């Protein structure tokens, strides 16, 4: 299950059926998401006008996307002026090839990685491995996933599905260290010691990017543990893979982003560390820097006037935490490195609405709207879900049922006739889809003796 990618192996429905059976997972997730949601509310309430701040974030991202070509070209120019090299990758495969080529040219067989969902999206680790290059995850949760040969299940906390005891056992088996307690601080200490040697000797690091600033050519990474700083500072070579939608026009725009991101993500006023660098700096940090600008389906999303708001996403994961579906099925059910409500709209669009399994994702929502309420850049996820549902291919049986329902509802005489007398029960059951899927867990409602319109007609007389 390692690696990741964005192509679900099955439909959401059947994947969820499996993950729902895991009661431990549901308990771990329920506890974790409740905790973080409560914390988030506290730091959001602290902002005087959170709604205006969200609107500012949405407007900024829309502006950046409307000028994407200029922003990317300026970014390229500025990064190169500061001594970096810019590469463009239209597909995942192209991006992987660029990373591998850089490593090969320096005869490097081991790279350290800053947590990057973009690199998981392109299945970088598995692809590098095939070419004899070992990628070592340094974020604690990514390390846990890597050691467990498990895929991430959350954007921010990839190992959210594991509890402390599971992690203690994993470390004991895989790292060969006896750990007397499963206290999180002890487990973190084990990871610190394990990775220190790697940081000090690594020749090359691979990272994602939280933002780039076109006007200055600067790249930013937002993190908590310091593994990011280690990777961005100590190796000789740094390769950053960034989705093209992450570019912001101006340095001052970073303030808007940073007011929204940590609060929505880790539920903090500010994350412990944010690193920003521009090309290379003599005597400080890597002396060779490569920026890979990745499309991999993002321009599909950009091309759709309704769907393009999806590209505002800053990968905070607030929508996952508040989502009642995510809370129960967990990230793996979405079959993509982008789980939860944002994944339900992003994954199928990245695949150009052409992947049958990914097209089941827009239906993985009760449309409760909690995601939209939490989104710091106001992506109207329920709207996009409804819109994308309209773009999916329908099963013939279902299609026929909805056509019949439409035929009835599109004419008030037919509708009135359907609700008259004894017909009402059968009509209603078929019209509202109250069939097998319903009655497994719910009783049918009692069918009334007469419809409202019949009551009204009699009363009117």
């Amino acid at each position, binding site marked *: 299950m390692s690696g990741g990618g964005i192509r679900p192996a099955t439909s959401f429905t059947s994947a969820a059926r499996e993950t729902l059976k895991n009661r431990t997972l549901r308990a771990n997730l329920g*506890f*974790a998401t409740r*905790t973080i949601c409560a914390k988030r509310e506290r730091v959001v309430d602290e902002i005087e006008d959170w709604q205006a701040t969200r609107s500012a974030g949405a407007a*900024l991202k829309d502006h950046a*996307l*409307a000028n*994407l070509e200029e922003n*990317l070209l300026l970014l390229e120019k500025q990064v190169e002026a500061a001594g970096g090299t810019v*590469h*463009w990758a*239209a597909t995942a495969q192209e991006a992987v090839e660029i990373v591998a080529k850089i490593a090969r040219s320096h005869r490097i067989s081991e790279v350290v990685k800053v947590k990057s969902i973009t690199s998981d999206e392109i299945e970088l680790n598995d692809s590098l491995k095939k070419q004899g290059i070992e990628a070592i995850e340094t974020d*604690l*949760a990514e390390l846990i996933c890597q050691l467990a040969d498990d895929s991430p299940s959350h954007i921010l*906390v990839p*190992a959210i599905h594991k*509890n402390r005891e599971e*992690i203690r056992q994993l470390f004991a088996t895989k790292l060969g260290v006896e750990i007397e307690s499963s206290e*999180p*601080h002890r487990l*973190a200490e084990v*990871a*610190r010691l394990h990775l*220190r040697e790697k*940081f000090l000797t690594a020749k090359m690091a691979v990272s994602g990017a939280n933002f780039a*600033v076109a006007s*200055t050519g*600067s790249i930013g990474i937002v993190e*908590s*543990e*310091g*593994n990011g*700083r*280690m990777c961005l*500072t*100590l190796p000789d070579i740094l390769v950053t893979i960034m989705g*093209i939608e992450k570019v912001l026009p*101006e*340095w*001052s*725009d*970073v303030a808007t982003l*940073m007011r929204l991101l940590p609060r929505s993500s880790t539920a*903090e*006023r*500010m994350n*412990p*560390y944010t*690193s*920003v660098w*521009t*090309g290379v*700096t003599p*005597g*400080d*940090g890597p002396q060779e820097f490569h920026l890979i600008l990745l*499309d991999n389906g993002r*321009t599909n999303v*950009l*091309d759709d006037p309704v769907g*393009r708001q999806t590209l505002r996403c800053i990968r905070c994961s607030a929508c996952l935490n508040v989502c009642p579906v995510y809370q129960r099925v967990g990230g793996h059910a979405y079959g993509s490195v982008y789980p939860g409500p944002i994944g339900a709209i992003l994954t199928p669009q990245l695949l150009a609405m052409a992947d049958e399994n990914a097209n089941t994702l827009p239906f993985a929502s009760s449309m409760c709207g909690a995601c939209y309420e939490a989104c710091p850049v106001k992506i109207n996820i329920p709207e996009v879900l409804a819109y994308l549902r309209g773009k999916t291919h329908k099963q013939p049986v279902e299609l026929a049922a909805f056509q019949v329902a439409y035929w009835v509802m599109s004419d008030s005489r037919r509708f009135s006739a359907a609700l008259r007398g004894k017909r009402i029960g059968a009509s209603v059951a078929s019209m509202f889809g109250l069939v097998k899927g319903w009655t497994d867990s719910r009783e049918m409602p009692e069918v009334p003796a007469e419809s409202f319109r019949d009551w009204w007609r009699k009363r009117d007389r």
Partner: protein
Amino acid sequence: MTAKERILSRIRTAAVPREDYFRTETPVQPASIDLFCERVADYRAIVHRVSQDEVSATLNRICEGRRCLVAADFEFVIEGAIADAGFTHAELVDFETTITSCAVGIAESGTIVLDAGQGQGRRAITLIPDHHVCIIRADQVVSSLEEGLERVMVTRPLTFISGPSATSDIELVRVEGVHGPRKLEVLVVKA
């Protein structure tokens, strides 16, 4: 067609309509030193509020008995502290404490920003040793993120620090201290 041409032509085809966009001027507000100190301390960093005269004594006290590193152009004198002479990463491991100044402090978020300016040194020296002591003058503290961004040299390597390194990766329980310095002390020097 190169990948670059393919991507750019697809962006052009999408033809996202442009709308007017205005950046609002950031009002410059007097920064609250109390708020800054409170928010830095909130991250479980240790905050000392000292007068100019007390700086050297306080630093000497913090560093006593520790192998201490400072940037080559650090402005205060600390007994026994060693100036960065381009040590290798392996050599930096042997230092327990690094003392630096910083570019700006942001009250809104309790953040200090290092931009490789005077007294701050290169990034590795505030990363490898386990204990970072940072000095900030009251007049370096600004109220908002916007004002903070204006005060740094953006093209130099920047590190925004809000408390010691931390993780919440295990059951979302916050643990201070993973890879970065596990202990952060901030000296706020009164005007």
